[in-house]
């Protein structure tokens, strides 16, 4: 029986401005097991990055987590959203860390990478000396030559900077690393190198990983379980083979039909229309206006996520 590491219960996030409220995440339940690799996929604006930020309670004004609960099962169970600032600092990076989107620009340009990695550790209670020793090991784990530690970020290529960020994310030995579009801007060869590296880390260190991406092909290659997100909600989730070989939600099916793959002589088809405006109330299923299978009920009642098989859930009236 897989042991849960992080449990997300009915999370809702809003972004508020003077004249409107955007409901970016509209009630998401999600579970990450120990040593598991999760993929969260969806189009831009579906709320996948915002959702990931809640795992670290990073949502800041004008964003607000309006309801829900996040339970982290470490040595003791932690209710993440109720943590006091000092406890939160201990939780972040020591338990859960993140590799940010566009993190090639997330490094300080005027500091050597060695210092940037050490700063992270010292901030979290490592001794100066231990931290210094650990830098070499971290760079090696991330697939970089430790002799590079005296470099400044501008002396490194995009792929190398991304590896520095991986090193920083692992600095305090977290149990869960969240990678938000971590390889989107990189070439395929570099992407494969970094992925191979991260998979190895799961095997060697036993960490869990969450990949947030719009690249469905990448998720097929690395994830154990997949969550498909649309308009701030999970519309389907299940083991990776179920999602790719037995997709149920019309959105998942359409998404899989819209991507070209090498040596697949199939005509690809786009999904008509655009995702709904999340600042306006949504009646019925948010995908109904773009769905070829929609019927009356779809425009009136929003479907709930229901179980349709081993660990496979879908929110669609076709199956309820």
């Amino acid at each position, binding site marked *: 029986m897989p042991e849960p590491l992080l449990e997300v219960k009915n999370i809702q996030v809003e972004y508020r401005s003077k004249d409107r409220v955007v409901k970016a995440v509209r009630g998401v339940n999600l579970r990450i097991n120990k040593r598991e690799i999760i993929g969260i996929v969806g189009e831009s604006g579906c709320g996948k990055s915002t959702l990931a930020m809640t795992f670290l309670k990073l949502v800041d004004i004008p964003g607000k987590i309006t309801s829900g609960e996040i339970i982290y099962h470490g040595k003791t169970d932690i209710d993440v959203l109720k943590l006091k600032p000092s406890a939160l600092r201990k939780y972040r990076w020591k338990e859960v860390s993140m590799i940010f989107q566009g993190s090639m620009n997330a490094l300080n340009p005027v500091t050597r990478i060695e210092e940037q990695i050490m700063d992270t550790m010292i901030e979290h209670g490592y001794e100066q000396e231990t931290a210094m020793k650990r830098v070499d090991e971290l760079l090696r784990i991330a697939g970089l030559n430790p002799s590079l530690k005296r470099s400044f970020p501008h002396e490194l290529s995009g792929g190398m900077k991304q590896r520095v960020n991986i090193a920083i994310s692992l600095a305090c030995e977290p149990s869960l690393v969240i990678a938000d579009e971590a390889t989107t801007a990189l070439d395929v060869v570099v992407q494969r190198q970094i992925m191979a590296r991260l998979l190895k880390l799961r095997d060697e260190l036993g960490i869990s990983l969450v990949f947030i991406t719009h690249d469905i092909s990448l998720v097929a290659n690395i994830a154990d379980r997949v969550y498909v997100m649309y308009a701030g909600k999970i519309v389907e989730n299940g083991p990776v083979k179920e999602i790719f070989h037995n997709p149920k939600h019309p959105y998942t099916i359409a998404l899989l039909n819209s991507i070209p*793959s090498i040596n697949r002589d199939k005509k690809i088809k786009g999904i008509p229309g655009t995702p709904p405006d999340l600042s306006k109330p949504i009646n019925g299923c948010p995908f109904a206006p773009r769905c070829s299978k929609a019927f009356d009920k779809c425009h009136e009642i929003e479907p709930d996520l229901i179980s349709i098989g081993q660990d496979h859930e879908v929110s669609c009236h076709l199956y309820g």
Partner: protein
Amino acid sequence: MDSIVELRNVTKIFTNTQGIIKRKKRTVYALHDVNLSIGEKEILGLIGESGSGKTTLGLAVLKLLDLEGGEILFRGKDILNMKKKETFRFREKTEMIFQDPYGSLNPVQSVYKIISTPYKVFNKNAKERDVIERVIDTLEMVGLNPPEQYLAKYPNQLSGGQRQRVGIARAIITNPEFLVADEPVSMLDVSLRADVLNILLELREKLGSSMLFISHDIAVTQYVSDRIAVMHLGQIVEIAESTELVNNPLHPYTQTLISSIPIPDPERRWDTSEPKVLAGEYVNEGKDECSFANKCPFVMDKCRRSRPKMIEKGNKHYVACYLYE
């Protein structure tokens, strides 16, 4: 096959000065002795990592860059030595589709103004009524229906996919014979890419234009292209018919590239080993050597002594690598 565009030994060099105290000139060969031809009605895909010179090549064939060497022929005419009038005609027959649908449309111009401008430039005496008709037809062709609804809109009222269609409409309104599409779908959401790619394929059927399709996404390139050319640090290392190139890559660089593409099927995952490319960052400094020699797992002495020539390995499959000589 008749070619519409031909590049002969094209070389483009960029220089920049580095260092504040010790000033040092650095030369980068963005295009190093490139030979390439694009056929009538052909879509030629150009793939390679960032910095390999793909975009430079796209700009060069449209006469948007000066060259340090070689010549580029458009229907047999040297585009670099064209007179003003000839250049004007050349500009009418060639167009570009840009990568960024957000940055490449003027935000204060209406869709009508954006699309009609190139047409008016090349048809100075056109009546406004004819121009409107023409714009409407073009909008229909790129799938913006009903077209009348879009004429008065501004870019900020359109989605990314709609903007890219406006960009395509602007490029095809003059009925160009040759188009350069530089990463036309890389900034679009996955669900919108398919339609834009299908529009490009339809246009080739309807207008009979040829295209240079630049992309780093091999799956996308294979979907639209007849042939694919692979570029590495300013050199073309392999050219073949699309399916042949993907199924039977010969050059070690192409092999690494193809084996690194994720396939959307959990049953066909990468093997978990890291790809066998040697580490390091290099630029092409114009040496007479194979551009991949520094990273190639099969490198031999002669790879650094002189650059391998492009040879045919049957079935119109060309490769520049000593492993096959």
